[in-house]
């Protein structure tokens, strides 16, 4: 790098820093709402414990696998999932998500997985509030939901990826669904991201959803190669280390995951069958 260019770079970054400082002055600072923060903090702490207690009540008899969940403060910790509530009551389980493993694998020597939490649709504001309180425990907060009423009649999903032996889950995408969210034909919604922190930053991971009728998805990579994901012949006999189009209970569309070979990244994805 030439001296001139270093100078130019320096100038550029310096100028941008000045512009940022100038723009930051636009905000009205106001008085710190210490009491509101304290109240909110106490509420969060209380909510955390209340949900933990409720979970402990229904955990007996659970045979579920260990799931990882984030605390509200961003820390990761292990949580044993509670047993599903009896369906005979007709009451939706508002206290825990249904977690489905979408894909697992090993990249080099690093294990990784992608899973999805699905929260059932609450029927009224009371149920929505109970569910939001439970979501806090799992760090599953829908981005577009400002208050309980916003969640009534809507299911919510949160896709996480985990990379490495002891790593926590990283929320990758989320959304809410209604009865009208079903997909059809060759509809596809998908996103890409690097596999995880510390990786090469290439957008290798593709996660997406397709119509219940889609039989095959093709992910195309920038090096010209392709990965084909097919629907499993029988939904009940899926090995989780196979890339397949998967049914996710509680959502009106199915999911797939592709991972680009090392050194290349996402170019395109479409339903091809």
């Amino acid at each position, binding site marked *: 790098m030439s001296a*001139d*260019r270093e100078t*130019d*770079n320096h*100038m*550029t*970054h310096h*100028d*941008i*820093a000045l*512009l*940022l*400082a*100038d*723009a*930051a*002055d*636009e*905000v*009205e*600072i*106001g008085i*710190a*709402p*210490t009491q*509101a*923060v*304290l109240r*909110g*903090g*106490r*509420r*969060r*702490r209380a909510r*955390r414990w209340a949900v933990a207690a409720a979970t402990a009540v229904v955990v007996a008899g659970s045979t579920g696998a260990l799931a990882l969940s984030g605390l*509200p*403060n*961003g*820390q990761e910790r292990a949580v044993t999932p509670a047993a599903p509530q009896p369906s005979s009551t007709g009451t939706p389980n508002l206290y825990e998500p249904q977690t489905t493993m979408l894909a697992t694998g090993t990249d080099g020597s690093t294990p990784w997985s992608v899973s999805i939490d699905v929260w059932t649709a609450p029927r009224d504001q009371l149920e929505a509030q109970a569910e939001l309180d439970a979501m806090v425990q799992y760090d599953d*907060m829908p*981005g577009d939901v400002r208050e309980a009423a916003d969640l009534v009649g809507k299911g919510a999903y949160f896709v996480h990826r985990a990379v490495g032996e002891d790593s926590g889950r990283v*929320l990758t*995408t*989320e*959304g809410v669904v209604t009865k009208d969210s079903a997909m059809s034909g060759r509809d596809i*919604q*998908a*996103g*890409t991201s*690097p596999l995880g*922190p*510390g*990786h*090469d*930053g290439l*957008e290798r991971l593709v996660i*997406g*959803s397709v119509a219940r009728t889609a039989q095959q998805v093709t992910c195309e990579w920038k090096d010209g190669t392709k990965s084909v994901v097919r629907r499993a012949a029988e939904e009940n006999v899926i090995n989780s280390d196979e890339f397949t189009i998967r049914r996710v209970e509680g959502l009106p569309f199915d999911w797939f995951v592709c991972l680009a070979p090392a050194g290349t990244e*996402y170019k395109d*994805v479409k339903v091809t069958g």
Partner: protein
Amino acid sequence: MGDRKQARDEEFQAFVIGRWPRLMRTAFLLTGEQHAAEDLVQSTLEQVYVAWRKVGSADDQEAYVRRVMINAHARKHRRRLKEFLAPKDDSGISHELPDTGDRISQADDRNALLRALAQLPPRQRQAVVLRYWEDLTESQAAEAMGCSVGAVKSNAAKGIAKLRAIPELAETVTYGGRK
């Protein structure tokens, strides 16, 4: 016991008062909007309060708070799947910016920068704000964003390149580092 709790709360309140202005400015650059910035800072500090017993005695409280804020910002602004698959072509800056004809030609740099920041994907915005407003090193920014140093470099470079491409800023910002 009650006294200790009260002392902790007082310590936390002093922390909030001391950090509020700086956090508000950072949050404003991240969100581009007054109320969103207030929400982000308040939500961040509420989360810090939950862990205050641990954070209050930590060596680097700033780093913890930054991490919480960036997490909260990422969560709040996490793109839905539809947006998530928006074309990944970073060279397509023009389609991500307001039409030239829609811009007020006399808009000042400050507003132009805020608009430009708002157009950046969250990770690029975070990297630019942490590196050039918070003046963090790449490794400090990586820690705050929970990603690799390489990802910070890449996001900051892409973000800066997009900012440089804003005509209103062109007069102020030199083009030396541009490819």
